[in-house]
């Protein structure tokens, strides 16, 4: 049997201090809102942040983060891109992080990163990829690979 055991109350109304506190806090909130109406939000959706660098011009960070999420890049390279199972990608604009890719970077200085991410070009076909997927096999489009590669080069 379920026993009905209501909880009584000492008073029904709202005490005056409760009303005054509510009015005071709403006013404080209103003032803060009115003084912060203009500005631009940062592109930080998903909680990802490029270490120590502001968003550089010309790179669509929001799109790049969307591609990163789609491909699951940070599952291996870490939330801060500082490495996990995969290498640390911060500073990759200065060149590859693994010796295997040095020759590719010399031969293709502008797009070695795109070639490596795609993994379908003969230039990188013989390099051991480990757990790195071939994103050019249909997982990511060439435009998406360009977007994420441009973003990764901003990580400093």
């Amino acid at each position, binding site marked *: 049997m379920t026993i009905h055991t209501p909880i009584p109350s000492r*008073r029904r109304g709202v005490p005056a201090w*409760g009303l005054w506190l509510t009015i005071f806090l709403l006013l404080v909130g209103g003032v803060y809102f009115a003084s912060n109406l203009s500005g631009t939000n940062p592109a930080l959706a998903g*909680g990802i942040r490029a270490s120590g660098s502001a968003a550089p011009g010309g790179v669509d960070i929001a799109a790049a983060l969307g591609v990163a999420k789609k491909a699951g890049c940070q599952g291996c390279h870490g*939330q801060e891109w500082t490495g996990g199972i995969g290498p640390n990608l911060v500073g990759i604009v200065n060149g590859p992080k693994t010796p295997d890719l040095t020759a590719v970077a010399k031969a293709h200085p502008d797009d070695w990163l795109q070639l490596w991410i795609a993994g379908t070009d003969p230039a990188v076909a013989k390099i051991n990829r480990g757990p790195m997927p071939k994103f050019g096999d249909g997982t990511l489009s060439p435009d998406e690979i360009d977007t994420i590669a441009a973003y990764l080069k901003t990580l400093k």
Partner: protein
Amino acid sequence: MSANLKKLRPYDQAPRPRRSLVPGAPDSAATLWLVVAALWLAASTGIGALWIVQQIAPQLSLNLHFAGPLHINIRVVIEASRSLAAFQNAVVFGWLTNAAIGAIWFIAPRLSGRPLVSNAGANTALGLWNLAVLLGVASIYLGILPATGVLSVFPLPVDALAVLALLMVNGIFWGSVVRGIGPTTYVSIGYFGIGLLAFLGLYAFDAAAPLLNLAAPWPALIDGFFARALETYWLLGAAVGTLYYVIPRATGNPLYSTGLALLGLLAWLVLSVLSGLGTLLDPSIPYALTTLGNVATMLLVLPAFLVVANLLLSMRGRWSLMLGTGTIAFALIALAFLLASSILQGVGALRTVQAHVIGTEWPLGDFIYASLGAYGFAALALTDHAFPRLLRRVWGDSPLGTAVLWASFIGTAVAGIALMFGGLAQGSLFTQGATPDVINGTLVWFRLGALGGLGLTALGGLGMLGNLFLMYTDGRLADYAVTDPPAPSSTAPSSTASASPAGS
């Protein structure tokens, strides 16, 4: 005339009662949901400790590939960002959600005077829900889901299981209480009802969002909004509803003010949805809209303060109970964490602070204060109050009860503080343009503190399971049936008292 039992034929004997595959006895749903929640507490904090270990030593990560039958490749990735996602999902959907729904099954019949419409249905929902959560956590480690670090959207079949379970939970709750709803309905029912409806709606929307094929950054923005609204509506709402029940019950006092409780409910209802707007951080979103969300997050300190004040004023004359290790001690710790986490979230929502700490470990420290602190201790208070009444046994005299209280309290406080201070340091280093090696070298001390804290909390969870086992096997029997209305001036009706008037 009495029968000679030795001469009875088999067909003369009374048929044995058939045991159903799904238990359907009164209060069985509350018991089972709370027991499963206790298992998740130990498991989730253990995963949290693993996350910190992998932050400190990334080489302790695993990435395995197996060639299974039928050319199915199985991938197991156990690394820091996946452990973080698994930790957050296990805490929110495993520990806190199971505990909150168990609390609802315990509290709703006692406040409404009507039994649950189906304990068997509620137990079926328990199976479906926990199967979904297990599969979801597994899919993070199996590489099926990206490790986003926020509450992940589970694969669609898993989501379907979860939505079905939530539909059943909502149906059983509303079917049980709807006839008793009126002007005198206690405030806890309001929090539970709104929280459950919001949980179902938010979960179903977030599960269906990928079907819309939205372009970036909308999927990430929707996930962020979902995580925030889920926390404020469901976790916060269920915790407050639980505390509004537990404290008056355990003290035997009436609630201080119904009006204050309703004002807090209204403020929470309006501010919770607006607070989600603060997560929409993208240049394409109007700045004023995000600021409105930030202001709502700051103003959430108002309902939190109203709840804390109302319940502390309800403690009048029973302050000695806070010196023990029973329900009231857990509940007061929950209130302290509730106020602290709402203030910290408000501070974190200030534009200047937000720019400094976002992307750092600050939000995770805040998450631990809110989830394991405020909502977790509300659930622990309820379990301390409810299990003796559900199992009709008294907690044992072992020191485990004290150990659970202090291990969980110190562990949660230390882990949260370590991550928040670490986040502040991380933000400063980002601003100075420090290299990742310098950042990781600085953060290692904060992470070690967080590891110790989460490890202690995990031990607290294991202690609670041990204490529960000892109570079930060795606990003294007690009758908690109510015979008289609660008497405010009676002696302390602690959770270990037998035949207590606060037994309901």
